[in-house]
């Protein structure tokens, strides 16, 4: 049964999900969970919250599958749910925008402060923290288009469909996001040292 479902298109799977077919839902989740989780993770910069929110998004998909009108691709609809969730999510207690402090990283053993190799690790962690912090401070729309383009390899065309924008608008948003980051991160361009 599952093998049969695996060969089905997203549209066929979603139709099955709309009639509460759990196996079809599982296949759809398996297909998109990695991508959805990583978009949310890059948005929230917190793994636990990213897992929690990703699951909430799939719960929403399970409940609203029957309302999908099939006017766009299923993948576009799923990413639109993700983007809307990110953009409309006002509860700041759930999305923790603060980046882990160095003390927290140290407590978790992610920072080691002895020897030159460990110093490099510290330096890299510090640079990563600053980069994540800078991305986090971007206006929401800049941040989400940058995440979709840079990390999820979505084309400008796909982003324009997901966000209901024109392609030039997407191009402009991505450029502005990069320009903002470039200004802040220029001093760190040559700092990151690979171990």
């Amino acid at each position, binding site marked *: 049964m599952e093998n049969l479902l695996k060969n089905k298109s997203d549209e066929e799977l979603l139709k099955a999900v709309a009639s509460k077919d*759990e196996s079809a839902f*599982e296949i759809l*989740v*398996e297909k998109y*969970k*990695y991508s959805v*989780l*990583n978009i949310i*993770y*890059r948005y929230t910069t917190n*793994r636990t919250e*990213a*897992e929690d929110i*990703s*699951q*909430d998004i*799939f*719960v929403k998909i*399970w*409940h609203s599958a029957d309302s999908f009108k099939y006017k766009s691709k299923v993948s576009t609809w799923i990413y639109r749910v993700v983007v809307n969730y990110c953009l409309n999510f006002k509860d700041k207690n759930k999305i923790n925008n603060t980046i882990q402090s160095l003390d927290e990283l140290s407590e978790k053993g992610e920072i080691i402060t002895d020897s030159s190799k460990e110093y490099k690790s510290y330096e*890299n962690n510090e*640079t*990563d923290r600053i*980069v*994540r912090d800078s*991305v986090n401070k971007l206006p929401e729309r800049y941040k989400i288009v*940058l995440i979709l*383009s*840079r*990390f999820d390899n979505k*084309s*400008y065309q796909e982003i324009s469909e997901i966000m209901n924008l024109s392609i030039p608008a997407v*191009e*402009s948003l*991505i*450029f502005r996001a*990069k*320009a903002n*980051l*470039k200004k802040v*991160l*220029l001093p*760190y*361009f*040559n700092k*990151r040292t690979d171990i």
Partner: protein
Amino acid sequence: MKKECTNPEKLSAFLDGELSEQERENIKSHLKNCLLCQKEVSELTKLSELLNNSFLPIEPSPYFITELKQKIEDNETMSVEIRINDWIARIKHSLIPIGATALILFSFVAGNRIGNILYQKSSTVGEREIYTSVESSILNDFPESSLTNTYANLLSEEGER
């Protein structure tokens, strides 16, 4: 950046692989002779590397689907509970106006009944009183020497006997 330089938005799109073949060729040939645009491209490339290194992807937990199914189950149980609570709340809310309306109707009907009973009692007494007063006044109104008065007197005398 020179006046004839490529729009920086296009340089960004060029690095993202979003331009047509023709546009790419134009930019490539421009880059050969423009140090400013080369610098812009170099900085954007370094930014991409920095972003890629700082946001390494994560793997979903092995319990992702199990936890998700649990959430759906909890959600459904919760929505049933919410529906029941909503239903109870609606009943509670509608009980007040229903009760008030029933009380008003009851008061109206009961008031009407009581009113009718009291009216019937009082009207019977009233009618008798009116009848008696009318009867006597009619008899008393005839002149003393009239045949009717004499007849009435005879009747009353017979009655007294």
